[in-house]
């Protein structure tokens, strides 16, 4: 196995509120190799977006990284100063968010934003950068890129805007992309186009990607490996095929079973009863134990770490041996 | 009540020292003013008790100070401290009454304009726009002038207080109307309002039971800030001599009267009412600022 590009070690993110400290992320460890796409799924509030934010150094107070390390190419980036982190974020890590409008500055033309990013991070003069910017817009599939480069963000449609955001995230040729629900705000037909685009560009440029989404279909199509989050922890992590087809954690199994199938009608969908606990009320032992159909006494007493479970690693006592 | 002390609002209140301080000051001001008949050392309106001999007594800490009159006396021998307390009562009454009046009109107009939309909205908001182009002092002078001209003097003096309240309130309501209209436009399209419309509830019921409770947050903020403004407006009017009748002097009246003696050396007659006014307005304003931040989810 090649050395990982990104390594997250025992990451813990806490929020200090007046009602005590909430642990939003607890003991999260993962690696992403160059050219690899790691999908991250989970219900809202499970901590998947928080993981992305922690990696790109955008945890907002009162939240903070309380423990653990984030290493990019073996170098710690979680303790960098704000301006140093900004360098890393533009040059080494590109970020794509759900709402393209939060990334694009409405007051500047798309071209100006691209050129600025390119000249900041790459040794190119403005003319070369503009040429590069047009190339990028063509690459992400914007028709008549040479003319549209001087348009403002609001002159693009939602799908086109997300393409511009992708161009903006990729134009400094980062080695890692953190994409947080990049297709959620888009319609199905546009979503498919954007996923195909992301996949192709990551493959062509050898860029590693953390793809955060709640849509298992997107993960199944795009990711190489998947991390399933539950109540701030990784419940299971492994190759996408095994997670989807042969999950080892009861939560992953429940999650997969509850997805309504497109190709047949089922009389009663397999739902997971109850809902994910709030951060302020995570039960002792395994956080999933109140909803788990296979719960036994150890689950209530003791919290499981990630254990080897054949092809994947699952935080579940069912896989404890000896 | 327990829920209140457990709420985020109370928590953010106790966390801000300046807010707690201004709340205490505001409480003392308001309490002192409303209980003036009980707390004030003298009754400034009781002509019988006035001692002309004691006129122009300076404050207690000066050489000629008299412990009976902690902040000195005016030209008639009235105790300045008592006059301030009674004056603050009038000022606060006008401030509160004008703000409540403006709030009622503004909330009603804003709610109707925002919820009904269309022509009603256009009409009401244009009236508000026109109202906003007149400075409040001008409106107050205008109203006062009309009332003075239309009514005999005795009647005018009797209702003068309410004329001031009306004059200040009428110039302040557009601010409330605009805010409430904005929030109403947001709330009326929320699904809980649609749910009520599906049931077929009347517009009045939806506005009062659903929309109104959800647009009151910002109203509370402007209301508090506006209270400070209204007190100042009253002081300005009274200073100009078109405000409350001289028989019920407010802080503004006291400042005006005292102003005549400022250059003859009796500075305390005007300075102390002025300080009282500043302290009162400032504390209320600070409370309003805190409330605005505390209720703004973006700043939390």
């Amino acid at each position, binding site marked *: 196995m090649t050395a990982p590009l990104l390594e997250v070690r025992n990451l813990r993110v806490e929020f200090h509120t007046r009602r005590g400290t909430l642990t939003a992320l607890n003991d999260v460890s993962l690696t992403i190799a160059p050219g690899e796409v790691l999908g991250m799924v989970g*219900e*809202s509030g499970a901590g998947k977006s928080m993981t992305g934010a922690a990696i790109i150094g955008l945890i907002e107070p009162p939240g903070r990284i309380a423990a653990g390390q984030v290493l990019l190419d073996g170098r710690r980036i979680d303790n960098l100063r704000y301006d140093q982190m900004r360098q890393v974020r533009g040059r080494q890590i590109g970020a794509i968010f759900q709402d393209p409008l939060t990334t694009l500055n409405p007051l500047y033309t798309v071209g100006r934003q691209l050129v600025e990013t390119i000249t900041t991070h790459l040794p190119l003069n403005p003319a070369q950068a503009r040429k590069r910017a047009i190339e990028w817009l063509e690459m992400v599939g914007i028709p008549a890129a040479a003319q549209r480069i001087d348009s403002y963000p609001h002159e693009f*449609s939602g*799908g*086109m805007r997300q393409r511009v955001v992708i161009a903006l995230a990729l134009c400094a040729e980062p080695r890692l992309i953190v994409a947080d629900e990049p297709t959620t705000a888009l*319609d*199905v*037909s*546009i*979503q*498919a*186009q954007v*996923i*195909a685009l992301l996949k192709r560009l990551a493959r062509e440029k050898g860029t590693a990607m953390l793809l955060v989404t*709640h*849509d*298992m*279909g*997107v993960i*199944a*199509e795009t990711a190489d490996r998947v991390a399933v989050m539950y109540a701030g922890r990784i419940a299971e992590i492994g190759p*996408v*095929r095994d997670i*989807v*087809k042969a999950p080892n954690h009861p939560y992953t199994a*429940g*999650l997969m079973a*509850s*997805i*309504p*199938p*497109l*190709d*047949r*009608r*089922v009389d*009663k*969908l*397999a*739902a*997971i*009863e109850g*809902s*994910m606990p*709030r951060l302020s009320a995570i039960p002792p032992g395994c956080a999933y134990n109140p909803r788990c159909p296979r719960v036994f006494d150890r689950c209530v007493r003791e919290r499981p770490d990630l254990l080897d479970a054949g092809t994947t690693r699952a935080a579940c006592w069912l896989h404890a041996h000896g | 009540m327990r829920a209140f002390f457990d709420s985020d609002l109370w928590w953010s209140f106790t966390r801000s020292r300046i807010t707690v301080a201004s709340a205490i000051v505001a409480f003392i001001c308001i309490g002192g003013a409303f209980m003036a008949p009980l707390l004030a050392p003298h009754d400034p309106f009781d002509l019988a008790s006035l001692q002309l001999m004691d006129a122009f007594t300076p404050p207690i800490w000066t050489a000629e100070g008299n412990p009976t009159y902690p902040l000195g006396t005016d030209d008639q021998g009235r105790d300045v401290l008592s006059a301030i307390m009674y004056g603050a009562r009038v000022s606060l009454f006008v401030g509160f009454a004008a703000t409540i009046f403006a709030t009622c009109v503004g909330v009603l107009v804003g709610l109707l304009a925002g919820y009904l939309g269309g022509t009603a909205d256009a009409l009401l908001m244009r009236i508000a726009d026109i109202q906003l182009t007149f400075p409040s002092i001008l409106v107050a002078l205008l109203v006062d002038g009309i009332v003075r001209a239309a009514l005999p003097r005795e009647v005018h003096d009797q209702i003068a207080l309410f004329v001031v309240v009306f004059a200040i309130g009428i110039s302040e309501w557009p601010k409330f109307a605009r805010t409430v209209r904005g929030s109403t436009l947001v709330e009326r399209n*929320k*699904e*809980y309002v*649609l*749910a*009520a*419309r*599906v*049931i*077929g*509830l009347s517009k009045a019921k939806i506005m009062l039971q*659903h929309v109104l*409770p*959800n647009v009151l947050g910002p109203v509370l903020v402007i209301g508090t800030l506006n209270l400070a403004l209204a007190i100042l407006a009253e002081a300005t009017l009274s200073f100009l001599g078109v405000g409350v009748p001289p028989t019920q002097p407010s802080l503004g009246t006291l400042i005006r009267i005292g102003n005549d003696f400022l250059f003859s050396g009796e500075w305390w007659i005007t300075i102390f009412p002025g300080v009282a006014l500043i302290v009162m307005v400032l504390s209320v304003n600070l409370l309003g600022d805190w409330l605005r931040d505390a209720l703004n989810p973006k700043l939390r």
Partner: protein
Amino acid sequence: MLEANDLARYFDVSRPALQRLIAREPRRTLRAVDGVSFTIPKGQTLSLVGESGCGKSTVARLVVGLYPPSDGTVAFDNQPLSVARADPAQRQRMQMIFQDPYASLNPRWRVRDIIAEPIRAFKLVDGKDAILARVGQLLTQVGLAPADGEKFPHEFSGGQRQRISIARALSSNPEFLVCDEPTSALDVSVQAQILNLMKELQRSLGLTYLFISHNLAVVRQVSDRVGVMYLGRIVEQAPAETLFTTPRHPYTRALMEAIPDLDMTGRTRIPVGGEVPSPISPPSGCAFHPRCPLANDRCKAERPLAQPAGESLVACHAVEEGRG
């Protein structure tokens, strides 16, 4: 139960009169819904699917009378909708469930008051205790506890709030429920709970649903009949099984093609190109023609009407001519 005939709703999206005058702009209308017809038999579910801006939510609102139609008619149980809406005894028979569980409950009301609102409005039960008992019963019916009535909406999770929404809708003993994307704001495991609950309620109470969704997989689970909408029109309408096994309209096929594949068969999908055009200036003829692989000159010029094709009603020249 419900019949919509050539239903249309236009919105005036022109700028204010003065600005329009200065810029010499004509009035602009948005044809959110443009000639939609369907019937929903008692006890059945009709679903409308489509991408954002296709007008499906507007249809939902037209059908419960939140908007008056610009054209066409809606009949509720064989009476014109406006007549039915004017009569409380008829009005209580229709209810609506909304998408956003955070906006559909008044944050300042206790849950018991939220659920009791229709009961009070229609004077269905008399007396405080009787109302409270009924609320408790409704809460139990949707899988919550009667004691939850004392709480405020913010104390519940998204799925629980949606249950409260359903309890409120059920409180007036409705027969017809309009469900506007009831699960699209929910997590997938909770979505399954809500869908199961809705199906179970339909069985036990004999409810009729108009179900609005953008998620084809969800639609397949709940529908008897499905209409696919594009730019304010129904392009294909068919019994659910027929639509999913033999989609006929090129747009329906493109939609199904676009859904990411969970089975990982490794097939390469050919995503449909282009974007949904603006409903303010829709393309001429068939609105789908700029994105359609089968489009020809006739599609650009002539608006296709819904024609029967097998069990389906399809508005497509290519299907009609056998080119599909």
